């Protein structure tokens, strides 16, 4: 353990990141620039999320890491090991037992509580980026709340596909002020952004941190006649039969056979354990 400073980053860096986090919490949805550090992993693997997690961790914390809802994928396993090694904190796969959850592209199905922090890995923090290439201009648009362009994108979706076809990274309005990218979570998870837990977003390559404090108003953008629809695959989970969880489509052979299973592995395992308990 003495080989590393607690949670890898040095104390000054953690202070710098905490200052950015505090500013982000004070101005919900606002992208705070921070001096992102080189991390021992490539950009795109969650360098932003890891730095935020490192700045928030205390020795008493219990960490859970998920990637697309799963605890056992490469990304999640690597990051969990990273903090086991550098911070020696307890880790868990149980959502309810974790105090800090770092996530890539999902919000856990279980309702989070006030004692938990959810840390998102964000590849592209700027929701207006593909509409307006200039950073100077997008910052001005945020400052002046000039968000007509965001609806132009949704208009284009409806004109081309007959419905709002944006299925992930669905833009939201935070506290009636900032338009924010919720990171590439499926739009099914958007309603869960209004949560009791503190939500922090870290983008390492883009050097931005932003936050949604507990119980903040988060509204998904839509049109009056095309309201927001948090859709999901119209199936129950093939393993636990849940009707209300987000599903992954898994191709099981080369004949086109497929099954739909919960993307949140912990949620699915819990339900199956409970079902077995009832049966026994």
């Amino acid at each position: 353990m003495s080989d590393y400073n607690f949670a890898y980053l040095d104390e000054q860096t953690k202070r710098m990141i905490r200052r950015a986090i505090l500013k982000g919490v004070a101005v919900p949805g606002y992208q705070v620039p921070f001096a992102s550090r080189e991390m021992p992993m490539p950009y795109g693997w969650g360098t932003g999320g890891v730095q935020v997690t490192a700045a928030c961790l205390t020795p008493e914390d219990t960490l859970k890491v998920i990637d697309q809802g799963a605890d056992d994928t490469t990304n999640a396993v690597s990051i969990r090991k990273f903090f086991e090694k550098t911070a020696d904190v307890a880790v868990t796969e149980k959502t309810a037992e974790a105090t800090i959850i770092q996530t890539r592209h999902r919000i856990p199905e279980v309702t989070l509580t006030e004692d938990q922090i959810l840390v998102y890995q964000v590849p592209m923090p700027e929701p207006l980026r593909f509409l307006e290439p200039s950073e100077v201009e997008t910052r001005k648009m945020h400052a002046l709340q000039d968000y007509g362009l965001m609806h132009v994108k949704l208009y284009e979706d409806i004109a081309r596909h007959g419905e709002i076809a944006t299925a992930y990274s669905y833009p939201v309005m935070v506290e009636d002020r900032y338009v924010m990218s919720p990171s590439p979570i499926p739009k099914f998870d958007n309603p869960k952004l209004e949560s009791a837990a503190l939500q922090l977003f870290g983008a390492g390559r883009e050097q931005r941190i932003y936050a949604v404090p507990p119980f903040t108003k988060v509204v998904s953008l839509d049109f009056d006649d095309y309201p927001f629809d948090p859709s999901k695959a119209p199936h129950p989970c093939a393993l636990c039969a849940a009707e209300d969880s987000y599903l992954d489509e898994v191709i099981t052979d080369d004949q086109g056979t497929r099954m739909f299973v919960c993307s949140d592995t912990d949620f699915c395992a819990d339900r199956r354990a409970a079902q077995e308990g009832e049966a026994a």
Partner: protein
Amino acid sequence: MTPLLDVKDLTKTYGGRVGCTDVSFRLYPGEVLGIVGESGSGKSTLLNCLAGHLPPDRGQVIFDTRAEGPRDVLTMSEPERRMLGRTDWAFVHQNPRDGLRMRISAGGNVGERLMAVGARHYGEIRAQATDWLGRVEISETRIDDRPSAFSGGMQQRLQIARNLVTGPRLVFMDEPTGGLDVSVQARLLDLIRGLVRRMGLSAIVVTHDLAVVRLLADRLMVMKDGHVIETGLTDQVLDDPQAPYTQLLVSSVLQV
């Protein structure tokens, strides 16, 4: 009558070089003012200063706002100026590529200003876009096509529709017919003239083409080296030019 736009001593220099100096004029509601001059005479600089795209060094641009009456545009805050830019003002660029979003459908282009001022009903936005495409003679069936699939003349008409959809009172036009062939030019001029008259628009048209101002403008300002050297009614200036430069300009027009 209150002038819609009252410009006083507007000056813009680029370092030591003069963009335009001490330009003053008044534009009354429903009036079309033409600004002519050769390349480099400062007419585009003047237009950009008026429209808020460039900060002038000196002077006032007083616009008769709907809510608060005459106000100096240059001392307004940025949000106010932007709001003006997408409600009461319109800017038609010479190159439609500068004024359109090329990767967004025609309907989205027309609807953008509506959405920017708060329209949130898809059906209504689309109905208005369809209506405006019709008014600028673009077929309804092209509403979901991107402007890149349009001809130059259609792009320019689309740009006009996109600008007029919020019912502006003042339109800035920078060489609106530049780069179009003559028959397309003629139809576009016809269209602009019709829209200006029907909507009672005021407009400032910058061009080097005297035929355009002859057709569109009520009054004319001739610029040379950043100075206004002659002003007057269009027919008066073109038929009886007083300044030597204006005489040269008028006599330089090719006759077919």
